[in-house]
């Protein structure tokens, strides 16, 4: 049979890989945070803090979500929220919100190495 096995999925491990790539390709990114998704969900959630983004008055709660490797062995969704440093401070203090279903609980800063 020509079925393709789906490899076990670790959102945090993928998050580190994406973070490395995004730090490398956008010097405006100052911090990237991994936001845990629901157990079993094949979605990598990131908040990327970028000092080159315009300060918007609106709530930055919209995520870019795109399916990655949809025909390969590790299909998953990559979801990214772009924020300015100021917006990130407001998210931490509860003045701005993350997308529905996202929580700061257990968030991790991805190292820039």
């Amino acid at each position, binding site marked *: 049979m020509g079925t393709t096995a789906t490899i076990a999925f670790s959102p945090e491990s993928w998050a580190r890989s994406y973070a490395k790539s995004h730090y490398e*390709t956008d010097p*405006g990114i100052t911090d990237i945070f991994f936001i845990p998704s629901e157990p079993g969900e094949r979605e990598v959630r990131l908040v990327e803090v970028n000092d080159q*983004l315009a300060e918007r008055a609106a709530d930055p709660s919209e995520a*870019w979500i*795109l399916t990655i490797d949809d025909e390969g062995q590790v299909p998953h969704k990559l979801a990214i929220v*772009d924020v300015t440093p100021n917006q990130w401070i407001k998210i931490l203090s509860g003045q701005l919100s993350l997308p529905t279903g996202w929580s700061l609980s257990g968030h991790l800063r991805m190292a820039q190495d």
Partner: protein
Amino acid sequence: MNRFQELWWQQVCAEHEILTLLVASSSIAICHQLHYLQMVTEKLGKAYYWRDRKPPPKSHASFVRFLQLLVSRGNRDCDRIATLLGFDSTIELRGWIRSAAPLAHEIERLAPALAGNMGPNVEYPWPQEAPTETPAKYLFPVGVRLRSKTGRQFLKVLALAVREFPNYA
């Protein structure tokens, strides 16, 4: 390329055609060139995002994100896309994205919705409450950068990204 992407791509092509004419003209105010450049980069990113058949976020900042998503695909796909965009390898494409990102962000910030009431934008005089500058007469620093080697390469890669869209979308 799905039917949603095709519609977005057709619009991108139409606007890129105008951009090409504006870039070739030295007598037209630079704000028009920057306006079309801002629209083409934004819409190309959003056209790609329709890959999942869902509308993109309303955010304007999409071109660098679009480039990053391109190099998030499998290695073989990345190499193929790098070639389509005029690079010898994915590594070379990634290096270019890093060097082009500041310019891309600067172009994105020219949209009136992102420039705010006080800053330079490509459409309306500013500051909004008591204008002292107008786009048609303003010497945009990013316009000067577009004539540099980095700027010229940015326009060249953008043209390839528009033309080759159906081959990687």
